[in-house]
């Protein structure tokens, strides 16, 4: 039993029993390309981002990948890890590479720039198309709006506001795969936070922008976005809110 005692995920410090190297397949190239294999030494508490960084610094400096904060704040290091979109900085190797193998690709549903870098332009362009910009009703000369933190709208916005735009939901959404015009979970989630912002003056325009067959009504409520969101948000819930709000607008209830 002694040599089986190394429990995956336990952060035993110091030199434990030497572990076999990780076998890492990394996507190389653009839309056309192939996997390249690397052997990376395993470390305690090693993250997938550590693995990618090791490859670039020690094995192949031409590898392209994207990261900034390393601690789950910036949302730039998301990739497809063993088939699922994840933040690589907050994904421990022990958690996802049970058999000692990792397969890394850029995020799906987006064009590939090179290697592990996907082109996020259409993802963010869709935030703009979903009217994700705040449209103030008042100017800075007027007094502050008073928003009751316990109000229903404030609580709805709070539940959705923490999105950092990593693109994990967008890359995981089957509707995006099937309908390239679909605005996607993140953009619609953003729109929902603004629908619940009483200071915003573009409610009707926003609902008209999102209540289309490429917007909230395209969502099939499969909840992959909600399952995989690293911030534990529920874009599905936000999209359901947009559906109800669009119905209220249709029935003459106005855009609140």
């Amino acid at each position: 039993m002694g040599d089986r005692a190394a429990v995956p995920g336990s952060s035993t410090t110091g030199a434990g029993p030497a572990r076999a190297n990780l076998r890492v397949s990394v996507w190389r190239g653009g839309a056309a390309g192939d996997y390249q294999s690397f052997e990376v030494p395993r470390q305690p508490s090693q993250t997938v981002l550590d693995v990618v960084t090791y490859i670039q610094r020690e094995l192949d400096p031409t590898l392209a990948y994207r990261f900034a904060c390393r601690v789950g704040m910036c949302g730039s290091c998301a990739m497809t890890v063993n088939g699922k979109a994840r933040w690589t900085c907050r994904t421990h190797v022990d958690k996802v590479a049970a058999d000692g193998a990792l397969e890394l690709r850029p995020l799906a549903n987006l064009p590939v720039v090179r290697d592990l870098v996907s082109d996020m332009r259409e993802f963010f362009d869709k935030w703009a198309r979903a009217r994700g910009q705040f449209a103030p009703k008042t100017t800075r000369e007027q007094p502050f709006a008073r928003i009751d933190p316990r109000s229903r709208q404030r609580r709805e916005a709070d539940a959705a506001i923490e999105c950092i735009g990593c693109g994990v939901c967008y890359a995981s959404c089957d509707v995006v795969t099937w309908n390239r015009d679909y605005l996607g979970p993140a953009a619609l989630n953003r729109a929902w936070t603004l629908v619940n912002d009483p200071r915003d003056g573009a409610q009707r325009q926003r609902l008209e922008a999102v209540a289309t067959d490429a917007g909230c009504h395209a969502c099939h409520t499969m909840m992959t976005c909600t399952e995989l969101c690293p911030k534990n948000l529920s874009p599905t819930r936000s999209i359901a809110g947009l559906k109800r709000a669009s119905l209220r607008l249709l029935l003459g209830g106005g855009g609140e």
Partner: protein
Amino acid sequence: MIARRETLLWAVQRATAVVLAFCVLVHLATIIYAVRTGLSASAILGRTQGSFAWGAFYGVFVIAVAVHAALGMRVIAAEWLRMKGPVAEIFAAGFAVLLAAMGLRAVMAVVAA
């Protein structure tokens, strides 16, 4: 306005789902009752023929099915069969007409006196 139209279609699909949930329960209960009490085909026809209530119930059921399923097929046609906008709409409308025609024909067959 595309938003109004899509929202309306979504609402119609939701509303027909509610109708279907009710109709399916009644339909299942009817089947179970007919089977367990051993009603013969002629006994069943004796109750349905000339019955406005059964005709209305199954007429509503069929229309709800035709509308609900066609709205679903419209999306499947666009997303999986890769039909472009108007083609998917025509395909879905044709599917609705087909379902409604077949269903109403069956209703007529058991209700017509």
